[in-house]
């Protein structure tokens, strides 16, 4: 393949990564923005989404398409319910103290991960995509009579991957609409701006917190259900999304949703392109160091105004 088609393929794959990452990271950003706590267990909610998606489609074995559709709706709700439960039983009781919350969510991380290991086991299991047509993509070339299109071998994407990009975009738009246009979003933003004042105006801050924590986890789970036909479900799969989400949320300006999506696009696309040309370990080292430096020297991120 020539360089051009190669780059296009890397960009398309990067766009899929970016879409999934944007969903996962916006969950983390939502929780940080409104509740001012860092949820270290976020990656495990992602993992739980993938594992539960496998479980649901396995139960519905005879009709995989229907099974996947059910998983897409039910699994995020299940994970959100679990996260809400964790919020009410643990985080609320320690008063959302930032440092103790991190320690507690590290504990939750191990509990979720190890319980999955005990029940689901150490294997990686695939989920079949509901539809998966291979779409060949054209590229142009210069011939004597001008520019013409041709179909290079290997330049293709599946319909499912395109659907993932579309679905992620749709959900993010929906989230934005809820935040900006609905009464619930108004209450969330009020809580974000001033917790005491919101409380004084009769906003049920505790319930908003529980809901937001659930929504954040639900978004991660949704991203995982979308990605599990591409990447298999495994009990240790939460580590990478957690680290990448952290990076994205920090670059995007802590808690800012548009910044988070923009940063996810940046990281997702560059991750796809960089790992084609460089060693992935080196890329990760540079990215991690860069983000650490960013936090040290510009704690408000590239797009936001808030600091940790």
């Amino acid at each position, binding site marked *: 393949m020539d360089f051009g088609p190669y780059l296009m393929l890397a960009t398309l794959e990067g766009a899929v990564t970016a879409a999934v990452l944007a969903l996962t990271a916006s969950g983390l950003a939502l929780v940080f923005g409104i509740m001012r706590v860092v949820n270290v267990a976020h990656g495990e909610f992602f993992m739980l989404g993938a594992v539960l998606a496998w479980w649901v489609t396995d139960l519905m074995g005879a009709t995989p398409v229907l099974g996947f559709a059910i998983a897409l709706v039910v699994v995020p709700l299940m994970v959100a319910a679990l996260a809400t439960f964790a919020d009410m039983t643990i985080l609320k009781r320690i008063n959302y103290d930032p440092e103790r919350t991190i*320690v507690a969510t590290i504990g939750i991380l191990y509990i979720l991960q190890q*319980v999955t290991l005990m029940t689901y086991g150490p294997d990686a299991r695939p989920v079949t995509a509901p539809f998966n047509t291979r779409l060949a993509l054209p590229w142009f070339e210069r011939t004597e009579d001008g520019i013409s299109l041709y179909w290079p071998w290997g330049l293709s994407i599946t319909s499912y991957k395109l659907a993932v990009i579309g679905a992620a975009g749709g959900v993010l738009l929906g989230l934005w609409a809820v935040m900006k246009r609905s009464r619930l979003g108004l209450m969330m933003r009020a809580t974000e701006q001033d917790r005491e004042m919101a409380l004084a105006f009769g906003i049920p801050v505790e319930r908003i917190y529980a809901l937001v924590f659930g929504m954040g986890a639900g978004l991660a789970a949704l991203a995982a259900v979308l990605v599990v036909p591409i990447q298999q479900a495994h009990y240790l799969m939460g580590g990478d999304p957690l680290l990448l989400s952290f990076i994205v949320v920090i670059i995007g300006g802590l808690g800012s949703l548009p910044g988070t999506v923009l940063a996810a696009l940046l990281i997702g696309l560059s991750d796809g392109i960089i790992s084609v040309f460089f060693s992935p370990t080196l890329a990760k080292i540079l990215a991690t*160091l860069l983000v650490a430096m960013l936090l*040290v020297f510009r*704690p408000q991120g590239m797009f936001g105004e808030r600091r940790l």
Partner: protein
Amino acid sequence: MRRDVQKNLLLHGGVLVALFALQFVLPAYHHGNVARIMVLATYAMGYNLLFGYVDLLSLGHAVFFAAGLYGMGIAVSHLGVSAPLGLMIGVLAGGVVGAIIGALALRTEGVAFMIVTLMFAQAGYLIILYFGEITRGDEGFVIQQVDRLFFGGDLSDPFIRYYAAFTVFCISFLSILALLHSPFGKTLIAIRENQERAVMLGYNVMRFKLLAVIFSAALSALAGATYGLLFGYVGASFASVQYSIFPLLWVLLGGAGTALGPLVGVFFMFYLIDISSGMTTAYMLVAGVVLVGLTLFAPQGLMGEIRRRFWRWLP
């Protein structure tokens, strides 16, 4: 006041004597375990110096432990340095890494400090994997028995190993106690209690904090280098996030800001994991449950609770 000093001497002296005497009664398996516990407790004490006495919560101490481990391991195995010199190189490596990370990370506070240290440690872990030809990555490498001679003593011999672990533990434990009673230690505690007041009194808080990070890193590196020498194995898993979480877990369990807390925490956690790993592969579940339980019910840890309820004189 005098009586408190006496009680302290009695308690801590007693603990050291008990640790020394244990080796004569323990069966072989537990004998090895206690040696391991003493080395890991040294690591936990290094962590406690920062977390317990300066209230800086780091999520990246594995990078200091690994700096000691690899500094010693590479010097001894690849460069043919003798074990005592290797140990010193390991501690030095930890101090240098501590100085660099400390100077950068201390520009941040609170949650940002936690995440920055986590990120630096992750970068350190990846760097170890990246130089797989030297470090052998996840697989790690074994330190040959000939390289584990410490002034003629063979550190692979269980009894010498126990003495070595005990010596390292004693030196670290007594240095920490001495440090806490020195003006330096008292200033650190003053910074923990009220940073603004310490600044107003004219202390250069940044310098004290940086020195605390360097001491803490060097002590963690000492534990890492000792661990590698005593048990003959150097591997990347010691640099992973899990080994940054462990000291936090030990210190929280034992009681942050208490002298005996780290030892107590390591002891309990070690045997909790040891027992549960006999029953299930998901032994880290215990760690999770303990972490959540501690934040909910006993944020002071075991020794902290004892100090709060019974022995108010505990250091």
